[in-house]
């Protein structure tokens, strides 16, 4: 079995299922919750929220800044062009290039971090159900241990009407 999951009609039901899985000893890293929109009002929305994206964006900005500084310095000193009486190495105009590339570096770093950490680009996700698009909330566990499956089924079956699904 690659995954065991159930679909819930609203966030409160999904919350109960997640709490049940936690009580069954499943760690947050192993719980998958999928919804058609962000569900910030619920505790399960904090699963996987820790990220260093802001720090990485700052590093990206620094890389952009250093690239611009190096590009301007090397260009102006290697191919000097006298212009309007300005010094060959003119930092005031260079600040514009440095600012733009700093921001570009931060933006690109944030997007790259998003792509990598959100695992975008995977064509065939293991655990997914198109019913999520209709408003259902999927709660499940990927690659569960065989011995733990009865406990997981019990945790996910918060109501007799909930039907469990497997992949």
């Amino acid at each position, binding site marked *: 079995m690659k995954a065991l999951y159930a679909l819930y009609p609203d966030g409160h039901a999904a919350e109960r299922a997640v709490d049940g899985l936690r009580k069954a000893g499943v760690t947050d890293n192993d719980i*998958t*919750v*999928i*919804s*058609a*929109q*962000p*569900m*910030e*009002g619920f505790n*399960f*929305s904090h*699963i*996987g*929220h820790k*990220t260093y*994206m*802001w720090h990485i*964006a700052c590093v990206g900005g620094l890389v952009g800044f250093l690239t611009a500084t190096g*590009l*301007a310095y090397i*260009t*102006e000193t*290697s*191919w000097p062009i006298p*212009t*309007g009486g*300005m010094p060959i190495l*003119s930092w005031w*105009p260079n600040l*514009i*290039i440095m600012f*733009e*590339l700093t*921001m*570009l570096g*931060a*933006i*690109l770093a*944030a*997007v790259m*971090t*998003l*792509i990598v*950490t*959100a*695992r*975008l*680009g*995977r*064509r*065939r*996700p293991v*655990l*997914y159900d*198109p019913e*999520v*698009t*209709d*408003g259902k909330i999927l709660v499940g566990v990927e690659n569960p241990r065989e011995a733990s499956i009865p406990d997981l089924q019990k945790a996910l079956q918060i109501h007799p009407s909930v039907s469990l699904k497997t992949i």
Partner: protein
Amino acid sequence: MKLPSDETITSDLLHPLLNTSWRFYLLVAFLGGIVVMGLGTWLFQMIMGFGLTGINNTIFWAFYITNFVFWIGISHAGTLISAILRLVNAGWRRPVTRCAEVITAFALMIGALFPIIHLGRPWLFFWLVPYPSSRMIWPNFRSPLVWDFFAINTYLTGSLLFLILPMIPDFAIVRDKSTGLRRKIYGVLALGWRGTTKQWHRLETAMSIMAVAIIPVAVSVHTIVSFDFSMAPVPMWHSTIFGPYFVAGAIFSGIAGLIIAMATLRKLLHLENYLYPLHFQNLGKLLLMMSLLWGYFVFNERLTVWYGNDEAEMNVFWVTQSGSFSPLFWTMVTANFVIPVIVLGIKRFRTITGCVIASFGVCIGMWLERFLIVVPSLGHKYLPYSWGTYTPRPVELMITTATFAAMVLLYTLFAKFVPIISIWELKAGKHPSPALFPEGAREHPLGEIHP
């Protein structure tokens, strides 16, 4: 009136994607025809040379640079406004943001095209790109045109990503709701999006970072466009006020462009349940504020020049105030200040129709403003023997018309292939979480909007 159910939101907003009427093909053919004519005219200009245009040794910038500044200004509608509203967590932004961000992307592309058209030999554009060529000539980093290259490309890259990232969850919705080839294409575009808590959180964080980064970039872009003028010792250009004056004007014309686009979408795609009169009223208030700010800048600029009484500047001053350019100047003042203040300042007139009328006026007025910055100053520089005048020729008129058609065409195609209102953001706003809204913004979640 409350927002429709989740199912209705999905079906309403996917309807234009999954159903195509003959009107769409007719519109695309009409606009495509104008764009093709524009491309043909551009090719003709390349072959025959710039003698076909009205520009001359004195007035070497005219329609094309006016269009460049105008379109870059229009581009300030989207990403900047969207980023600000996102950062302050304004709930009413949700149906507006994508309509706005698309304007930015396409207006920037069209705007950036004009310096290339203006080159005359556009195939040499790559000389501006900073790379070591075989002739060992790198661009001059002290030239405002090179600053333009960096600023516009940074803003375009950021704006495209700011537009595309929130589209990914919507692509996943289309993937799940469609069949056949369409399902495959949107499946690829959705990049395997599932909607896990981790993915949502990463997306929101990335959007917040980009919103923080894109606001100063947007301000810098039009400041740098203003530097194209203010760095030159030309009468009424060499001014410290040009940076903020251009930024204010850009946001002003951008909001006007956004109101026109939203009203058109609302009518044609029947989005009355999503784009409320309140959205137009809010944007109308913003447009009114920018109109007053624009008037303040114009007054500052004019008073300072008049008080300084510099002979060269006064020549430009009087030719626009009461000379040959005065009809354009006073039309600009009427369209940018008088009409918006009357229409948007009186609550009874601040309807959707009123906002659209004021916005059309502002778009015309702001185009005239750009033209009046470029042409009269170049025609009345310090040495009277080099004074000149300018009359646009058919090639310039055709290419200008074609870019307006290109804007509408690109927007139409976008609205056909992508949900023009972010479905997931609308749903998220329909059930606002207390955690999403800080104290100050709590009274404005989308669910409480009444038309």
